[in-house]
């Protein structure tokens, strides 16, 4: 049995935080907190959890650039797999509970509701990333693994648009129930800006030159 000491504080925190949405849903299920429309409630919660975790996975590299927080890189796979887990629950609930596996209705819905089509695309693109997230595949794919996992740069905006278009309002005119989707979009855009090589180099050199007090440059236990 591995003892708890083998886990770093960040690791423990991350597992606790990533399972929180699931724990909360189970708690709500027992206390009547799933609202009058539990299926939609669970769909929305798991969808949001998945998107949040994907964005956190995208935040790993920029946070490392800004703060030299390299332990985060080791936690990225778990973030992605938690996101995939929530996305799976999200999709399973949609197919099984929301649409009762009525395939003709599901097909009709996918093509009549562009936001569902976007969600389906995001989910399908996520599958190869989850499958190849393990070391065997990383070794087998070599450099191509990195390119494959850059798919996330497309999956996150697709999923964000899926979220935004499921809401009442006009996302691109900042009108209606678009506040939360825009919050996700803005964080995503910032994380992408921090990936631009010039920006990245600027912040990396700034950190080393200034020896910023909040720099988290812990020696890595191996």
């Amino acid at each position, binding site marked *: 049995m591995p003892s708890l000491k083998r886990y770093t504080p960040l690791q423990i925190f991350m597992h606790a935080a990533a399972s929180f949405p699931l724990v909360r849903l189970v708690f709500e299920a027992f206390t009547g*907190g799933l*609202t*009058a*429309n539990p*299926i*939609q*409630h669970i769909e929305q919660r798991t969808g949001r959890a998945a998107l949040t975790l994907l964005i956190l996975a995208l935040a790993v590299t920029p946070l490392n650039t800004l703060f030299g927080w390299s332990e985060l890189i080791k936690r990225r796979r778990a973030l992605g797999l938690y996101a995939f887990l929530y996305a799976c629950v999200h999709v399973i609930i949609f197919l099984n*509970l*929301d*649409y*009762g596996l*009525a395939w003709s*209705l599901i097909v*009709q*819905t996918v093509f*009549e*509701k*562009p*936001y569902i089509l976007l969600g389906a695309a995001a989910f399908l693109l996520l599958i190869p990333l989850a499958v190849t997230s393990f070391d065997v595949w990383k070794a087998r794919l070599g450099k191509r693994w990195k390119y494959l996992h850059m798919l996330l740069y497309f999956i996150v905006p697709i999923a964000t648009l899926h979220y935004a*278009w*499921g809401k*009442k*309002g*006009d996302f691109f*005119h*900042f*009108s*209606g*129930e*678009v*506040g939360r989707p825009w919050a996700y979009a803005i964080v995503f855009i910032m994380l992408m800006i921090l990936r631009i090589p010039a920006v990245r180099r600027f912040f990396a050199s700034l950190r080393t030159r200034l020896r910023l007090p909040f720099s988290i440059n812990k020696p890595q236990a191996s």
Partner: protein
Amino acid sequence: MSPFQSNIPSSEITPKEVFLSRRDVLKAAGFAGLGALLAACAPQAVSSSGAQAAPPDVPNSLEDISNYNNYYEFTVDKARVAPLAKDFTSRPWTVEVGGLVNNPKTYDVDELIKKFQPEERIYRLRCVEAWSMVIPWMGFPLAKLLAEVEPASDAKYVAFETIYDPDQMPGQKSPLFPWPYREGLRMDEAMNDLAILATGLYGDLLPNQNGAPIRLVVPWKYGFKSIKGIVRIELTNEEPATLWSSASPNEYGFYANVNPNVSHPRWSQASERRIGELTRRPTLMFNGYAEQVAHLYEGMDLAKNY
């Protein structure tokens, strides 16, 4: 024929004698076990429809109706409206009725209730988000109020406005919506007997989160047409702007009739989830009220006038 095109006879209004006898039962029972009692009475109240193949319409519980609300003036989170609206002040409250009328007047809401004697109307409510409920409103026909203020001959539309009070309604601080909430009906729609001003729910006064003290209910249209917390009613000769048609013009039209054949640009409207049920139901034309309202739209292209 696809189950999504089936049409059912639709008069779900409680026959008056049933309503009256139910009222006596309720009075006798007092308020204890109100929900359970009504649930037991409900099937009887709506069984007269004689619909073939159409699933029965059983009123949703007061618990569900008053804890799952779209009322963006408070929050966009449907489960959080009730706690946020708990301390909302719905008295004293006046409703100003004016515009193109011969007798403009400002009414106290209690005066309206006394004058027009609300009766129970059990209606389906279909949200544009594709969920629905069955709700036993207490209300009176909008036509009665309009008759009293005497519309001028050039009045063609009725515009409604919700109270604007960001101190009480935190959602109104959001810059993403063109507050205050506005809605409108064409004159003949407003005069239809199904259109009511509701002041109560399950025989009691309207809970704050359901639009207290007075709201519109137009059951053949998507729920967002049924504007809540009304402070102003104005008769006009031009189609009034509404909050949703201003916020997202190509998605929310003026008419917003429930129509399974016309999709919202981003949502199919063919089916819906009845709150409390596990399987989806086919959505009915005019939310099942075609018999009463279809004639209002004869000759109109409903795909264009969505």
